[in-house]
């Protein structure tokens, strides 16, 4: 085989209005090789690959496919060139079936009609490839976010592309599915498929990548082999070195802040009890679908439950009343920030202020000065990267959006922070900042409950680890006694084998 790249993004630049998001970057993708893109949140990775996916066209520079300069004006053109893309944001229609989502835009037809049998056959095949055992008739919206991610992957793989772009495909997956996915990727690589892989999990890079292109602030920084040690990658990426990936500063635990007793919702979770003390970080681990999200939402008053009690600082909270939970000092950072965490069309300042909007108002008047002051302070403290507090939150990078949701609760002075997958899609630098924030909260006498599917994070940042399995508490471990093995063995307890 020749050494000619399948795809070259040749000195491409992308401007949105006055802002240059990608600035003169060159990336080559070869057959059977995995090109990793590395960069902080907002560095321009997604924008870069979107030029190959037919979402954006470069403002300058060119796209070269098989040695020929090519235009890729839309998705169809990209697919026609043999490029398949798994986008960072889930792109599913929740009311349509899994099968229709997988084959969207290319439903099999017979005599001009949709061939439903063939559709379900192809979909089942694609689902089997990724090891997802769900009924393809199910509406995609009924699946949890991880399964939806797997559906996306199945969708892209079923295109049988020769170039596969994966923009943070592992962000919502647990170890188990990631391993399966990496198996698939290795197989495709051996079949000669070229790939672009974006991830904020540095450990994945060494295990899967061939070569790494690092970009910072939209500019090319370096291209290095995937074997480059992590600290060096971090330094290239953020322009400085990060000493410690999990900088947990344990605080001596004090009085209990949050106490959950016998929490049950039929069919979802059963008899969940635990306690979190001031100054403590409780990690909640478990497989996808273990019911962690449901439990923490119920605690925060977002959903109702059948039996059990939730007590904060000795005061029992009424069932399903968010307002009461917030007033008692509970703050929930939900797992799907775009869908339920942020008002994407509103400004950063507005989003930071929602939790205090009503409570800080006097005679119904918005406390404009106070809201602005709090927003300013929090934005500075969390180092939110933005053009100004008036910027639309939807235009921020993922990591910065996550900081905005967190900032809302810091601003509201919440004592008990419940973080559901707080670092999903967040870059190393920002991750450490979020961890440091957790430290500050516990040091100030607050408590943190952190649901995470990233085991290293759970192990690195928690003081105690609660493992859930099939809606029940499978066990609680002190951080010192826990390692990947002990946590996983609890997590798979009671799980039937065919479950993801």
């Amino acid at each position, binding site marked *: 085989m020749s050494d000619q790249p399948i795809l070259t993004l040749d000195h491409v630049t992308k401007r949105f209005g006055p802002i240059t998001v990608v600035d003169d970057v060159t990336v080559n993708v070869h057959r059977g090789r995995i090109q990793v893109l590395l960069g902080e949140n907002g560095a321009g990775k997604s924008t870069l690959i979107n030029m190959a996916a037919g*979402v954006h066209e470069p403002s300058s520079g060119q796209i070269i496919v098989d040695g020929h300069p090519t235009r890729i004006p839309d*998705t*169809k053109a990209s697919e026609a060139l043999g490029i398949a893309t798994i986008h960072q944001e889930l*792109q*599913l*229609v929740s009311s*349509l079936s899994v099968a229709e989502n997988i084959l969207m835009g290319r439903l099999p037809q017979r005599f001009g009609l*949709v061939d439903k049998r063939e559709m379900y056959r192809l979909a089942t095949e694609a689902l089997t490839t990724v090891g997802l055992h*769900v009924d393809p*008739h199910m509406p995609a919206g009924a699946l949890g976010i991880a399964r939806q991610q797997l559906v996306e992957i199945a969708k892209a793989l079923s295109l049988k592309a020769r170039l596969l772009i994966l923009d943070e495909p592992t962000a919502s997956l647990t170890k188990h599915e990631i391993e399966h996915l990496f198996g698939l990727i290795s197989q495709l690589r051996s079949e000669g498929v070229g790939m672009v892989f974006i991830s904020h999990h540095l450990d994945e890079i060494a295990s899967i990548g061939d070569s790494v292109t690092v970009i910072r602030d939209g500019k090319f920084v370096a291209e290095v082999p995937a074997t480059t040690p992590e600290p060096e990658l971090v330094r290239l990426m953020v322009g400085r070195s990060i000493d410690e990936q999990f900088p947990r500063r344990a605080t001596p635990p004090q009085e209990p802040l949050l106490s959950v007793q016998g929490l049950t919702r039929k069919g979802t979770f059963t008899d969940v009890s635990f306690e979190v003390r001031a100054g403590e970080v409780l990690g909640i681990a478990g497989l996808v679908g273990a019911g962690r999200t449901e439990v923490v939402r119920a605690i925060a008053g977002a959903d109702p439950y059948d039996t059990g009690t939730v007590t904060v600082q000795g005061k029992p909270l009424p069932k399903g009343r968010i307002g009461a939970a917030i007033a008692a000092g509970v703050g929930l950072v939900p797992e799907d920030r775009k869908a339920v965490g942020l008002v994407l069309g509103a400004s950063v300042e507005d989003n930071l202020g929602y939790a205090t909007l009503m409570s800080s108002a006097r005679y119904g008047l918005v406390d404009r000065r106070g809201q602005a002051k709090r927003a300013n302070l929090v934005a500075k403290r969390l180092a939110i990267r933005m053009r100004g507090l008036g910027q639309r939150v939807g235009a921020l990078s993922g990591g910065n959006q996550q900081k905005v949701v967190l900032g809302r609760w810091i601003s509201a002075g919440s004592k008990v922070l419940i973080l559901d997958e707080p670092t999903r899609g967040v870059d190393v630098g920002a991750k450490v900042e979020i961890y440091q924030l957790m430290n500050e909260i516990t040091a100030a006498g607050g408590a943190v409950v952190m649901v995470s599917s990233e085991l290293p994070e759970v192990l690195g940042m928690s003081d105690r680890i609660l493992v859930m399995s099939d809606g029940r508490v499978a066990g609680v471990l002190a951080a010192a006694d826990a390692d990947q093995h002990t946590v996983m063995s609890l997590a798979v307890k009671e799980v039937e084998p065919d479950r993801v």
Partner: protein
Amino acid sequence: MSNTQETTPTAQKAPGADVTSKRAKIADFVSANGALVGLLVLCVAMFIATPDFLTPNNLLNVGIQASVVAILAFGQTFVIVTAGIDLSVGSVAALSAMVAAFTGQSWGMPPLVALLFGLLTGLAAGMLSGAATAYAKLPPFIATLAMLSVARGLTLVVSNGIPVPTSSVVTWLGGSIGPIPMPVVVLLVMGAIGWFILNRLSVGRAMYAVGGNLEAARLSGIPVKRVLVTVYALSGIFAAVAGLVLSGRLASAQPQAATGYELDAIAAVVIGGASLAGGVGRISGTLIGALVLAVIRNGLNLLNVSAFWQQVIIGLVIAVAVGIDVLRRKRA
């Protein structure tokens, strides 16, 4: 939210459950068409209230009386599934019927050609609205509100404000073959066509994708703009058919025909379980919605409720019919 698929998800269906599959299908249909319960409650109430309701003749009347709004609403279903709205259906119906009558009467076109002119008028109006939405990026509310006004104005211009007698073919569409009223036949045919488009054609499935998640549809290579134009074009054609049936029933194309029907058509679709936010909606639901409206009006006439109170009751019944559905879904 109701399901958009023809069969609701029957995950982990036991294999070999063929015997019960018919019953299951009926159950599926009921659960997917919540307003059906509302319709049945309404019918039972009417039956108890007046013996005139449940006569074969009156039921056919209800069918005839539902036909125009139902056909408009079928077309509207496509639009609402894509998260759009078509306010112009009433005016476009009137314009199409008027063009059909006028080309027949004044230009002396043969009846079938005149009818074709009517249909083409609906198509053209729909395509214009669609293009204004998809390409000129006007909000559907504005594009179709403009069309509402333009089409009504053109109807008046064409007719000079005077009703025009319809041709034989159109009158036949409004008449009946033996005991079978043609409007009901047309209603069923258009319903079948609508169902077929939404469920069996890829463009129909694409409508759900566009309405459910426009960005996802675009990224999956669905030609979103073309789908949108198709949707409004279909709504235009369905409106033309509704207009022809309406003028056929009256043997005359009226310049003010179908004024205000857009709200009825949209209401029928929403009562039938669709969401104005897009991605959901089915033809069977829309039919039920149109029947709910027709049964209320028919029943209140039969019961001799005063014209003033009728409006109060119609409002309440619409709210209750949809309320039943909302409750039922919450329980499920």
